[in-house]
Structure formats: structure tokens, C-alpha cells
């Protein structure tokens, strides 16, 4: 897998402070989001299998999504029990937590509990998620790369962030084989975040060294080769229908997909 400098403890060059992804967090919420990431940094290390930040925010933190939105924090857990244990623990001092759901919401292939956290003045959504088998995928990369480590200075304050954050290539795999992905594409719903994020990743990663070999090797390990190829083919076949006819993608993409897994 390609190296992401900021994940390599002690080996990264001096990072810009604040990191460039902060620009894509609404300024009014920046301090709240960063404060919560700093709090989360102290919550995972005692866990046998820690939560991992997945979803859109992981792509923002990894500097793959470059637009401003109201970002939620999605925490992926290894089991339903781990979600419930985390939900039951006392919030760190200074953090207010409100649960939107009365209980763990179980659906097809997913269980989730939606909460909001507040430290300063703004509420940030923090969703606790169990979604087998994807934890294994993200955890195996986390074991190799370690957590995301950043020092963020905002005004006079400095925040230490040290949290497990999914790698964009794993997020790509998770999204492309998600059971909901094919129905979203077939419905033509181009505003759906999964469609958008996958296209952004194809745009940024297609020509990255190691991307395709990583996808193929990992897909083989998890028995996902057919699903990944079909997902990509489906997306490209429906590109115009989804409204992305003008979205620029690397010219080599068709050939890369054509060769994938063959």
C-alpha cells in the first residue's frame, strides 16, 4: 500500500499547522471537530480492537475530499458488543453526548447507533457502526500503518490527534462492494455520497503507484474480485445517467478496470 506520510509515527516531515484538511471543515465547527478528534485519541488505546474512523471524514483527514460539508465522524467497531460497550462508557470530562437512537439499529449487514458530541458550542455527529466484514479490512491496514498522528494548532491552542483512520484505498473497496452501491447507481441517484466519493477516489488514485495492485491483492484475500470489478464497471457504464458525464477521470481508467482481476 502507498505510504501516507502522516500515518508514519516519527517519520513524517514537519506538517503544516493546521493541516490543510482543516480548510474543508466549516470554520465555526473546526474547533469542535478537532477537539473531539483529540478526545477520541485518548479513548482507543486501551481497547483490544480499537474503533477506526471510516467514511467521508476519513477521506477528508487523508486529504482526498476537498470540499466543505458538515462532516460526521463514523467510528467502525469490530462487533455489536464493542459498539454497546463504547456507548455505555462514561463520556470523557467536558464532553456532552446525546444519543439519537434508543438502541442499536440493526439493518441488512449493518448495525449503528447515532449520537452527537459537543465540547465547545457545536454538536458534531458521531456514529458508532458495526459492518462486517469490513472491520477486518481496515484493521489489517491499521496494524501495518498505525494511527493518524497530527499536531493541530488553532489560535493559541494545540491539539494532539492520534486516531485510527481508514486508508482511502480500503474505503474505496468498502464502498464499491457495499450492497447498497448497485441499487444507488441503478437508481441514477448521482448525489449519493458513495457515488461521489468513489468517483473522487478514481480521479485521485487511478494513477497512483500501487493502487491497482493493492486493490487486486486485497480483493483476492477477501474474495471480492468479482464484486469490485462489477461495481466499477457498473459505475462507469452509468456515468452519464448519474450526471457525471463531465467529471474528468484518467484516460487509463477503462483499461485498468478491464484488466482488473484477469
Amino acid at each position: 500500500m502507498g505510504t501516507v506520510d502522516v500515518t508514519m509515527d516519527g517519520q513524517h516531515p514537519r506538517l503544516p499547522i493546521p493541516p490543510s484538511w482543516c480548510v474543508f471543515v466549516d470554520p465555526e465547527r473546526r474547533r469542535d471537530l478537532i477537539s473531539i478528534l483529540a478526545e477520541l485519541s485518548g479513548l482507543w488505546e486501551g481497547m483490544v480492537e480499537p474503533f477506526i474512523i471510516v467514511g467521508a471524514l476519513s477521506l477528508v483527514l487523508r486529504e482526498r475530499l476537498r470540499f466543505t460539508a458538515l462532516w460526521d465522524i463514523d467510528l467502525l467497531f469490530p462487533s455489536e458488543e464493542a459498539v454497546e460497550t463504547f456507548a455505555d462508557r462514561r463520556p470523557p470530562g467536558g464532553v456532552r453526548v446525546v444519543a439519537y437512537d434508543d438502541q442499536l439499529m440493526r439493518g441488512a449487514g449493518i448495525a449503528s447507533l447515532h449520537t452527537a458530541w459537543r465540547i465547545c458550542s457545536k454538536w458534531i455527529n458521531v456514529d458508532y457502526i458495526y459492518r462486517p466484514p469490513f472491520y477486518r479490512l481496515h484493521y489489517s491496514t491499521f496494524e501495518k500503518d498505525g494511527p493518524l498522528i497530527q499536531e493541530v494548532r488553532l489560535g493559541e491552542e494545540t491539539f494532539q490527534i492520534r486516531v485510527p483512520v481508514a486508508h482511502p484505498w480500503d474505503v474505496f473497496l468498502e464502498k464499491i462492494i457495499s450492497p447498497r452501491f448497485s441499487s444507488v447507481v441503478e437508481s441514477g441517484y448521482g448525489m449519493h455520497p458513495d457515488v461521489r466519493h468513489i468517483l473522487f477516489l478514481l480521479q485521485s488514485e487511478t494513477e497512483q503507484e500501487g493502487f491497482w495492485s493493492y486493490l487486486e491483492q486485497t480483493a483476492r484475500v477477501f474474495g471480492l474480485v468479482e464484486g469490485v470489478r462489477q461495481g466499477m464497471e457498473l459505475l462507469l457504464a452509468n456515468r452519464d445517467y448519474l450526471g457525471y458525464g463531465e467529471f474528468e477521470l484518467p484516460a487509463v481508467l477503462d483499461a485498468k478496470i478491464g484488466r482488473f482481476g484477469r
Partner: protein
Amino acid sequence: MSFRFEIRLSGSGGQGLILAGKVLAEAAAIYDGKNATQSQSYGPEARGGASRSEVIISDEDIDYPKAEQLDLLLALTQEACDKYVGHLRENGILLVDGSLVPNPPAGTFRIVDIPFAEIAEKEVGRSLVANIVAIGAITELSRIVSIEGVESAILARVPKGTEELNLKAFHAGIEAAKRAQGG
């Protein structure tokens, strides 16, 4: 005088309600400079079943992020309407598409019936943008977010090349709400 406006968007998965909630919250918080929270929840059965998104907009810090007394309830299934209508405050707005909610209950609230799906299909040419039509109607009925703010939030999310279609849907919703109010 300060305000707190609570909106719940309810129906079933696939109706674009979560996205609609995000667009409204982003319009308020990012483009209009107000305070906003947005939450989502799914029914316990399965995704694709019940779906619900809540948006709270205020000019002050929001002390509690869950909706308690709704100012506006969008209900796009009869089940969602029946389940949540009791959470509407007196003189609140119950916004429905009558083809999906054939029996809206009477109460001390105002019912506004707008055929979102039909407008999306016939006036805009794409049924998928029914949720954007609904955003337009909510913008007009609530007057809690600016038209410019919502336009910016929509444009930040839609694929390049589909801006016109989505803005057309948004304004079709505004006009439909004006008509529904006799304006």
C-alpha cells in the same frame, strides 16, 4: 428575539431524505451563518425501510440537538405521517405528498399537500429530484434558510453539468409552496 426551528423529514429509504436534511443544514450553517444540527436515523428493520432526518436551525448555540416540538414535518409515507404527526407543535406545518400520504390526520397544525414526485417528473423531467423539490417547498414554507444559501448548498453537492436540473427542481418546489399557500 431568538428562534429555534425544528424540521423532521420522514419517509422511507431511497427518497433522499438524509441528503435533503444535510442540504438544509449546510445552507443554514455554512452559507447563512446560523447554527444548525442535522441527524439521521433508520428504522430498526433495515436500511431501505423507514428513514428519518432532523434539522434544527437556530440563531443561538443549540443546547439540545434532538427535535422535541416540530415546526415542520415532511412526511412521505403514511406510516411516517401517523408516527410523527403527534410531535408537531400547535400551528406547525405538516407537509405531505398526497399521493404517498392519502390520509393526513387533522389537528391543530396546517397541512400543505404538494405532489413532489409529480412535479419532479412533469416539470423537471426527472423523478429522482423529488427531494430537491421538497427542499424548495420547505425553504418557502419555513423562511428559515435563504434561497441563496440553499442554492449554494445544492450546487456544492450536485454533479457538474446537473446544476440547472437541480436548481430547476428547487425553484419548482418554491413555486409549488407558494401556490399551495394561495400566494
